[in-house]
């Protein structure tokens, strides 16, 4: 229910700022947003989780699908996350080694993705 999505453009990066809880009920909206961006030709995507209070395996799955999609276009994908509770979910699943997880938006934008 409680998911906020805010999309903006900075240079060649599309920034998706997510707020609230990413779970089985809300993850489909994030998935559709990522699909829409890629199909519109945006292949460099940053997903900011700074305003996210909760993410579950469904949310992680949507991020994996986003990463896959931009890779097929030689794009870039980065995740912004500094909140320990959320970082922990990436760490214990090992996905912190799969994603480029940056502590700030600027770090993410400066990266290769």
């Amino acid at each position, binding site marked *: *229910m*409680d998911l906020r999505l805010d999309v903006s453009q900075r240079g060649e990066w599309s920034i998706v700022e997510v707020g609230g*809880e990413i*779970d*089985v*009920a809300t993850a489909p909206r994030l998935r559709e947003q990522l699909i829409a961006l890629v199909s519109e030709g945006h292949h460099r995507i940053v997903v900011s989780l700074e305003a996210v209070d*909760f993410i*579950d*395996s*469904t949310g*992680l*799955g*949507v991020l*994996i*699908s986003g*990463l*896959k999609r931009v*890779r097929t276009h030689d794009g870039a994908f980065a995740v912004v996350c500094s909140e*320990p*509770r959320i970082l*922990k*979910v990436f760490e*214990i*699943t*090992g*996905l912190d*080694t*799969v994603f480029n997880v940056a502590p700030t938006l600027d770090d993410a934008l400066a990266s290769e993705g």
Partner: protein
Amino acid sequence: MHAAPDPEVVELALPARPEVVSVARLVVGAIVASDPLFDDERGADLRLAVSEACTNAIQAQLAADERTAVPPVGLPILMRCTVGVGCIDVVVTDHAGGFDPSTLVPHPEVTDPARLEYEGGLGIPLLRMLTDHVEFRPTGDGTEVRMRFEPHGDPVRG
């Protein structure tokens, strides 16, 4: 709801709809927050593990409802939370036909590029990592996921 009387048991019956998983998190979050032995980080573990178990139960129930020729019966998902001495037990029960967790094929290592082929399959591994003990028990018509949580780290007195 003919709950076995026990002064420390909270039970929640939810319709099999994705939107209500957040209600299960709220309830288990409130219960763990009122237990001074569990700090915020461990509380977050509980919320996530219980959420994963409820999500699986609801998805299995929705799939089972779709398989039945008759209109879906909409059997509820049950969550039962017991605050014990030094631990919290949560049982999530569904009537979705059951499954055999030992047949689940482990995914490739996260470092393997083939790992990206799998968007799902993270729920049960997370359950195993976040609980101190987890058991998947087949019931007559579904599954009972029994989870035990102990406090980790330094307890915060609340």
